[in-house]
């Protein structure tokens, strides 16, 4: 089922790629949050929209919510030709996406859709809330959660899981990827398929701890935090 959803999403992406010239009234909104059930977090932070028409430029900005990949602006534009340009910035203010389109605005109720293109790497983490499994052999208790990391951008990035987590003494955090690399250390990640990782905590069985903590992934294009 998940593969079917992913296939559908990929097909939708393929259809939508480079469709920034879509005309008024043919707005296509593909909300990946809906496709994935909103089950991801990313480095998307803000979008800046500039509209140039009639020799004037106005700028609007908006903020992506956690797990959002879509923003919508209600705007008033002078009739005639107008150019819409958008920059999407990351949590550390890196330019992630840029896109623009020029359209002729003639009537109220117009709808302009912009699908910006990535200009660098984009860190995406799933799920937004890790689901931990617990194993306790009477001496050591271990919580583990499978997660996925993906670079949705167009250039390589580096990333790691921040080891600094609020936890009691005796609790150790660990992170390993499918290739048994320690992902508490920086690793490069090229654009492409997602990388499976396992995040966990281990501790003596006598320590009282539940992993309801926020995990922070540190990447070269910004930080991503999961929900506890």
């Amino acid at each position, binding site marked *: 089922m998940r593969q079917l959803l992913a296939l559908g999403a990929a097909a939708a*992406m393929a259809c*939508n790629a480079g469709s920034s010239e879509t005309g008024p009234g043919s707005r296509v909104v593909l909300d990946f949050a809906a496709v994935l059930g909103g089950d991801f977090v990313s480095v998307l932070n803000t979008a800046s929209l500039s509209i140039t028409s*009639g020799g004037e430029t106005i700028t609007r900005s908006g903020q992506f919510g956690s797990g959002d*990949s879509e*923003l*919508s602006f209600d705007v008033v534009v*002078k009739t005639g030709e107008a150019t819409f340009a958008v920059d999407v910035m990351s949590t550390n203010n890196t330019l992630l996406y840029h896109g623009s389109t020029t359209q002729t*605005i003639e009537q109220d109720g117009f*709808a302009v859709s912009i*699908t910006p293109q990535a200009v660098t790497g984009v860190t995406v983490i799933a799920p937004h809330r890790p689901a931990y499994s617990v194993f306790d052999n009477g001496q050591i208790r271990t919580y583990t959660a499978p997660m996925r990391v993906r670079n949705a951008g167009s250039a390589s990035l580096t990333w790691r899981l921040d080891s600094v987590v609020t936890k009691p003494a005796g609790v150790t955090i660990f992170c390993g990827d499918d290739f048994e690399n320690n992902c508490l250390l920086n690793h490069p990640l090229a654009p492409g398929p997602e990388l499976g990782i396992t995040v966990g905590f281990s501790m003596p069985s006598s320590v009282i701890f539940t992993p309801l903590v926020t995990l922070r992934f540190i990447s070269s294009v910004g930080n991503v935090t999961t929900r506890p």
Partner: protein
Amino acid sequence: MAGSVTRRLLIAGLWLAGACTTPYAKLDGVLAGVRPVPPGQASPVTVVHEGERRTPPVNTSVVKGDTLQTGASGVAVLTLRAGYEVIVEAGSDIHIENPSIFVRVGKLILKSVRRVTEAIRLNTRFVSAGVEGTQFVFEVSSDDVVRISVLQGIVFVSPQTSGWPRVTLTAGQFLVIRDGIPPAAPQRLGQDVTRTTLDRMATVEQATGYRFGQPWSRFKPLWQKPVFLVPAAIVGAATVVIVAKSGKGSKAGTVGITVPF
């Protein structure tokens, strides 16, 4: 550049709109004695407009706030927009208080000349006379004695301040009020007075060439006249062109941003 032109057009439009103000009355005749004033000769009729004294020619508009004075031999004929012909006899001094006229001194002969569109009042220091569709004479002496003679219709006479009840005058009656003192009962108007007044009206109308109905065309609102329509059309067309060129006019819509994860 476009903004400057647009501003000028707007100013021109406002000027044109301001010019649409409908006058209270038209000066439709000026006599010196019983003859029209020859060209080049000083007019015996003066209008004080916004503090400036003028001797206006025939067809001049008279507006609210104006004062009209007739000299010792001057007679003015006004056509009120409300539908009255007013003969302002020599030695009169009136002030336009739209929709009323304040008579400081002098003699006015009023006659409704078409369907009256609004009632008017003639006021003095002590008396107020309400008139609607009638024919009567209103005289105020220099010592504030008011005499009202009704030839046709009805005139209601009231004190400016309370002191006596309203008096209703009907055709063939006259009333004299001295210094605002409660007047005696209306008296019968003599046939000779009626005849003299009608003759006087006919004489003035003939001398001034006053023709009923004709003056009303001059009360057509300015916006219906070519003097307004032509420049207004030019201003309107120019405005449309400028607005179209500058692309003014805004439209509301939505811009959606979808990040392709």
